[in-house]
């Protein structure tokens, strides 16, 4: 073990590479597989971690000097572990939410109505078919196809049934549908080399908030290690979500809200007369107001600048950090309490569940899918985000965030009873979003629909490398 690894108390060669760092490739392809022939599938898994020339090699957390043409990682659902032949006792040792699967937790996650699992795209509507998700990261389609072919050929074509392949690609420098710059905030980990090394005002997260088998920041709480130890340790859990984004509805709502706000008696508190000039050349008051609504809902301007550091304009006079900010003195006149960013990570702000501070952090690896929306040529094609939300405990982190903070808003009494304006399970009839103003008054936006719906997904376990060897040996 290198000194680096011993400081971290984990060996980077034991951990899949997509957990603690982002690869920054232009494209991703997720292959949704069902184990067809267990022995062949197990043999192939072994080949993926032993340098076999015909099998894609699992990318680990080890540093590379030259960037490979592609990276390859796998996740297994409960049905996947079962399909590979994990023992009853081993299966039983996994956390309840993982055993229930994402579809089994739908109400907790707000997957209701059209987002309910029975409406999910195939094969996600039948969770037993979603067993292994193989993710290929590369810059070009030729490489994605090459690796996909290697997977399809596994066990002379008998190991898996390929149900579907889901492609995502980065467009326009990390912007996502709805026009926001994404992939800015990520937890930084104690002792793990962080090449970007952006300052951020938050304590570094212990490795145990992502990897199974290490101490967490949660006052001595340790998440159970799935058994046997070699299987559970150094793994992580992942919520894979196919989230469709209704761009037309979102942009239309920005129009409606901007018109409403321009007529609002308090409109100048949001946008002082003439302030639209700072938004860009020839930007109208209405266009500026649209950007204000989009920013308040998110917590960042669409160009990524955080509201906490630049409350009134997306183009602050002096450059501000994109990552190093907090909700000082619990102020919400910049970033509202109910904004997506603040709900998803309240940082140092006061929260109701004080015991949970800093404990519900997630690594987010999301890539858009579907063509960029062109307002000049509106269409009904599906587009959205292929999201991976990674953590050591789905119950303690991902679900806790979704059911109490994103929806419901328990973390602050001023938003309790409302859902995240961007991501929440909203209904036009009941939705509301408060924008606190410097004068102490609030502007209340209402009547917005649900903008993001769930089209599929699965809870997967991202096994460590020794765990993959163990599964291969079953």
């Amino acid at each position, binding site marked *: 073990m290198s000194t680096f690894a011993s400081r971290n108390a984990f060996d980077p060669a034991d951990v899949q590479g997509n957990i603690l760092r982002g690869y920054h490739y232009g494209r991703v392809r997720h292959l949704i597989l069902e184990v067809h022939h267990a022995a062949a599938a197990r043999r192939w898994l072994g080949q993926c971690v032993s340098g076999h020339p015909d099998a894609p090699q699992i990318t680990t957390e080890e540093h590379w000097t030259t960037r490979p043409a592609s990276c390859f990682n796998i996740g297994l659902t409960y049905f996947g572990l079962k399909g590979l032949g994990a023992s009853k006792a081993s299966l039983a040792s996994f956390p309840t939410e993982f055993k229930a699967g994402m579809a089994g937790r739908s109400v907790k996650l707000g997957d209701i109505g059209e987002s309910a699992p029975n409406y999910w795209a195939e094969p996600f509507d039948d969770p037993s078919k979603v067993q292994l998700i193989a993710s290929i990261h590369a810059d070009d389609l030729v490489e994605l196809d090459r690796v996909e072919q290697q997977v399809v050929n596994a066990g002379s074509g008998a190991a898996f049934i390929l149900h579907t392949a889901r492609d995502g690609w980065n467009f326009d420098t990390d912007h996502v549908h709805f026009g926001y710059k994404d992939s800015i905030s990520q937890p930084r980990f104690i002792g793990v080399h962080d090449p970007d090394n952006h300052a951020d005002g938050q304590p570094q997260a212990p490795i145990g908030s992502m990897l199974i088998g290490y101490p967490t920041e949660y006052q001595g709480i340790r998440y159970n290690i799935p058994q046997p130890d070699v299987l559970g340790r150094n793994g992580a859990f992942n919520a894979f979500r196919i989230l469709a984004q209704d761009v037309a509805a979102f942009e239309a709502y920005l129009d409606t809200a901007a018109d409403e706000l321009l007529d609002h008696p308090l409109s100048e508190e949001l946008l002082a007369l003439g302030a639209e000039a700072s938004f860009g050349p020839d930007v109208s008051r209405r266009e500026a107001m649209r950007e204000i609504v989009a920013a308040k809902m998110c917590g960042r301007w669409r160009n990524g600048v955080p509201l906490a550091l630049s409350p009134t304009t997306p183009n602050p006079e002096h450059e501000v950090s994109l990552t190093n900010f907090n909700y000082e003195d619990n102020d919400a006149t910049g970033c509202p309490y109910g904004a997506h960013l603040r709900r998803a990570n309240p940082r140092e702000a006061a929260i109701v569940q004080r015991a949970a501070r800093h404990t519900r952090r997630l690594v987010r690896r999301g890539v858009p899918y579907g063509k960029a929306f062109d307002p000049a040529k509106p269409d009904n094609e599906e587009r959205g985000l292929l999201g991976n939300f990674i953590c050591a405990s789905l119950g303690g982190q991902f679900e806790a965030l979704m059911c*109490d903070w994103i*929806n419901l808003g328990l973390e602050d009494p001023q938003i309790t009873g409302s859902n995240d304006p961007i991501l929440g399970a909203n209904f036009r009839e009941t939705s509301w979003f408060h924008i606190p103003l410097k004068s102490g008054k609030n502007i209340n936006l209402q009547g917005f629909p649900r903008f993001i719906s769930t089209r599929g997904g699965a809870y997967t376990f991202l096994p460590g490398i020794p765990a993959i060897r163990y599964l291969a040996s079953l």
Partner: protein
Amino acid sequence: MSGNSSWMNSLVNRMATSKFFNYLAGHVLVPYWAWRTPVYAQHGGPRATIPPGDNMQRMMNLILPLKDKTAVGRAKAALAIASNLDEIYAGLDNVGTVHFARFVIIENNMCMISSYDGDFSNYIRDFVAQLGTVFDSVVALIEGGDDMIPTKENIDAFINWVHDRDVYQIPDTATDLLRYGTIGHSAAKADGPDDLRLMPRALILQLHKNPNSLLGSGYRGYPGLSVAQIRHKMGLGW
């Protein structure tokens, strides 16, 4: 309608509410049904639900059987709570979502009865984060508790353990069925509930598995408000 069949009807009707029939139903018929139609014991506590109001002031009624079922055992349990009371209250305060909580010894059970906002697992996890070390001395006195200690290091198992010991909540809809004299019969309340034939079989089977139950989601004096909202409105600081 012939006189004969109305005589039969009235016999059957009388039989249904007779002591003999009730005895037969409770001791023979229900176990027979349960054998024919196996039913899983539903988890205790409230079900996952979307409307915000239903996620506030949810009820927990934990029944934890004491290992030592003598006065000495009960005294030990009383002592375990009493000697840690300040820490327990401070911890509950830091969980932030608890309206009230009380410990009651009923027969030979330590009962913890509380009302909390939001998700059950989050509540228990935060509770353990705050209080696990103190609460372990209570868990040690409970049947099956030893396997859970230290709770901080068995958090997933402990949440399930608690969930299994939270009293089954008869859904509001089923409670309404009982209230209004059950399905298909708009019969007056008076003849409804004690007539076993009119009660939903699924409910009876569930109560066979879950002998303790909470009827519906309970009464709330200030519906739909979280602890923090109340504190905030009263200017108490949350």
